[in-house]
């Protein structure tokens, strides 16, 4: 009775006549996870390209001793922006692109838990990234390294607005990441299809789940750190200023309490991708599924307990260094479990080396090499030698490029037909793989030796005849080859987009998980029926049982859809304006009016007004979404 009465009270949802946007407006207002995935991919790809160009400029400067292609200041800006852009604006959005494109499909859901927040997360990331990159044309980019250590990043040593762009830009972009992480946690906990218990979830869904949990716990640390640094720089606080009673080491702790989990935020999704690609192309179920899950959780937990290994030379004392050395080496155990599980999955499988599997197979040895140097670096006494040399640079590029980026390219080739309905060219894909991996090892393998011979990282040039010359030349040639590999991938994308859609539901023919049971690209409601999951590798299980597709878990019914809305975009524009306004609030401009507007926080207030106004709109205007009726579903 109470239920019926309640139904009468709720406003009748509009069944039809939902406003459909087209063109640019469609992209700005979309809350569809598949479209947001594509937005993340293009935006992430753009920043990845910018970061790549910065990398090539860095390598060009280092091609020979005493080069004067760029000066020291520009070089500092290049390395800072290369690191920051690649990690926060390049690979993380591409990770989110794949998560958005795949996770709801893999768990049999029709969208993420909070579609509105999903869009908000994308737009805040994009505007944060734009703000950070505006620094190039607005008085100089940040130049204190991607770690932005104090006191170098304080006003005493970084007087321009460079580091402000870093703190405010990352703050805004970080908001998007946090929103995205919470969204995927809620999605995976609450929206799995009937029958999909946690231990029946595909590995990529598991790693996304754990990655989101790490984001939830790690990002608040950098948020706080950036707020404190912003206060120090703009409002004259003393958190990191020793003269005022602050501590520069505090920044190092805060940064690495975030920064170390961050590297697991980066690599775990790649582990997930590899764990999807290898079983598909080995045509075997993943070896040791439950140990993979356990290893993922263990890596996430240990990832929070090792941050001080970035600070061995800071002077924490031998006891702390020993403890953190041991906890760091412990991480090699679950990671090793994963490596062996992948090898045992390939072992005895009927392996097909399609492009995704090529990248996955290239990933395993490359990532293992990065892991081995990681254990070397974990040894605190040895680290006193390695610290701040090219050995460290080689190590983290092996795990981030050889690990994460290879994993991402594998995942992009693998899920491209699902995202866009078109198969990428296998020929060009193989060219991409061979040029990229050859270039990669040329670039970074030699850097181990450069580091061991004493070449420091972050130096803008070096003297001749220290045995650095040839290896640096080789490294630069390798970087060029990686650039060519990336261009071939880009060509592949363009060529493929000109072709008519050719991908069937299960284009690799050996798809194991739910996303391959629906059309490519999926309709906006994903699943006509919510599928009924009967085991791990749900779709594969039905195929081996001789069934055509998934069994439905419910009759065809009306599907509730979220409404498109421009509010997330508007909110992000507001934050962007507020950020710029706050950054320049202490500046003196040529025009008295402009100075007045900035110095009295009027610009900041205007931006916040836009954001909070949009929030108010969202709260006051009750949007119940719309429905796709069964007749429309059958009409297709």
């Amino acid at each position, binding site marked *: 009775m109470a239920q019926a009465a309640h139904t009468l009270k709720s406003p009748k949802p509009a*069944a039809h006549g939902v406003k459909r946007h087209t063109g640019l407006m469609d992209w700005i207002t979309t809350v569809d996870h598949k479209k947001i995935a594509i937005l993340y991919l293009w935006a992430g790809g753009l920043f990845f390209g910018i970061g790549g160009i910065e990398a090539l400029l860095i390598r060009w400067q280092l091609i020979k001793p005493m080069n004067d292609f760029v000066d020291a200041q520009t070089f500092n800006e290049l390395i800072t922006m290369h690191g920051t852009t690649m990690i926060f604006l390049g690979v993380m959005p591409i990770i989110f692109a794949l998560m958005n494109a795949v996770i709801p499909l893999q768990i049999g859901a029709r969208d993420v838990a909070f579609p509105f927040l999903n869009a908000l997360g994308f737009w805040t990331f994009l505007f944060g990234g734009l703000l950070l990159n505006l620094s190039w044309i607005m008085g100089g980019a940040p130049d204190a390294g991607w770690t932005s250590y104090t006191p170098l990043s304080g006003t005493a040593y970084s007087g321009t607005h460079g580091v402000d762009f870093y703190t405010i830009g990352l703050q805004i972009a970080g908001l998007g990441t946090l929103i995205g992480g919470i969204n995927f946690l809620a999605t995976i906990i609450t929206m799995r299809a009937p029958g999909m218990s946690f231990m029946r979830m595909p590995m990529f869904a598991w790693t996304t789940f754990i990655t989101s949990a790490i984001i939830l716990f790690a990002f608040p640390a950098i948020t706080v750190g950036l707020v404190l640094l912003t206060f120090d720089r703009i409002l004259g606080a003393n958190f990191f200023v020793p003269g005022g009673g602050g501590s520069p080491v505090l920044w190092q702790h805060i940064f690495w309490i975030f920064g170390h989990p961050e590297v697991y935020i980066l690599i775990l999704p790649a582990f997930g991708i590899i764990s999807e690609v290898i079983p598909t192309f080995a045509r075997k179920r993943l070896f040791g599924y439950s140990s993979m899950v356990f290893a993922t959780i263990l890596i996430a937990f240990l990832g929070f307990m090792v941050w001080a290994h970035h600070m061995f030379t800071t002077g924490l004392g031998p006891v*702390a260094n020993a403890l953190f050395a041991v906890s760091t080496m412990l991480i090699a155990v679950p990671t090793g479990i994963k490596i062996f599980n992948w090898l045992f999955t390939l072992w005895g499988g009927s392996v097909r080396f399609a492009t995704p599997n090529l990248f996955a197979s290239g990933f395993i040895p490359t990532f293992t090499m990065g892991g081995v140097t990681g254990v070397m670096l974990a040894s605190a006494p040895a680290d006193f030698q390695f610290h701040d040399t090219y050995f460290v640079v080689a190590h983290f590029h092996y795990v981030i490029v050889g690990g994460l980026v290879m994993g991402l390219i594998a995942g992009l080739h693998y899920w491209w037909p699902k995202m866009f309905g078109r198969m990428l060219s296998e020929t060009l894909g193989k060219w991409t793989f061979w040029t990229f991996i050859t270039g990669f090892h040329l670039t970074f393998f030699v850097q181990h030796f450069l580091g061991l011979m004493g070449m420091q990282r972050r130096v803008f040039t070096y003297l001749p005849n220290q045995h650095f010359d040839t290896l640096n030349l080789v490294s630069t040639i390798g970087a060029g080859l990686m650039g060519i590999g990336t261009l071939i991938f880009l060509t592949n994308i363009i060529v493929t987009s000109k072709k008519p859609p050719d991908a069937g539901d299960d284009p690799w023919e050996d798809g194991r998980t739910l996303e391959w049971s629906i059309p490519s690209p999926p309709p906006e409601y994903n699943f006509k029926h919510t599928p009924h999951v009967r085991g791990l590798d749900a779709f594969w299980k039905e195929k081996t049982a001789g069934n055509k597709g998934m069994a439905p878990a419910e009759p065809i019914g009306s599907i509730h859809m979220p409404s498109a809305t421009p509010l997330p975009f508007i909110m992000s524009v507001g934050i962007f304006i507020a950020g710029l306004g706050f950054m320049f609030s202490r500046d003196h401009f040529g025009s008295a009016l402009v100075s007045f507007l900035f110095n009295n926080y009027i610009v900041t207030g205007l931006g916040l007004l836009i954001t909070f106004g949009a929030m108010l709109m969202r709260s006051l205007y009750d949007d119940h979404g719309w429905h796709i*009726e*069964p007749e429309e579903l059958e009409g297709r």
Partner: protein
Amino acid sequence: MAAEQHTRDHGVKRRHRQEGPQKHILIFVLSAVLTLIAFAAVAAGEVNAVFAVILLLVMAVIQVFVQMGYWMHLKDKGHMMPIIFILGGFLIAGTCIIMALYWVWWD
């Protein structure tokens, strides 16, 4: 069909509402009283400083349990995930804060 979907959505909310407002008012008063005791202990100025600090800490712990259990519904069924995540958050944040503070200010 659409109506059915909506009933289901509202059904979830209804479960919390069944507890009735009495309990919530009681908990709200309890939170307020806990806060008042803490304030009064300091404002009176006659309470021994050590005792006041201990009292404040005890009040704070009780307050945390009340807030978490009732307002965040951790005592309710089906809240295993929030409990796991909140405890995980405490564990990780606590470790980091204690160790970082130890090195920054006391070491």
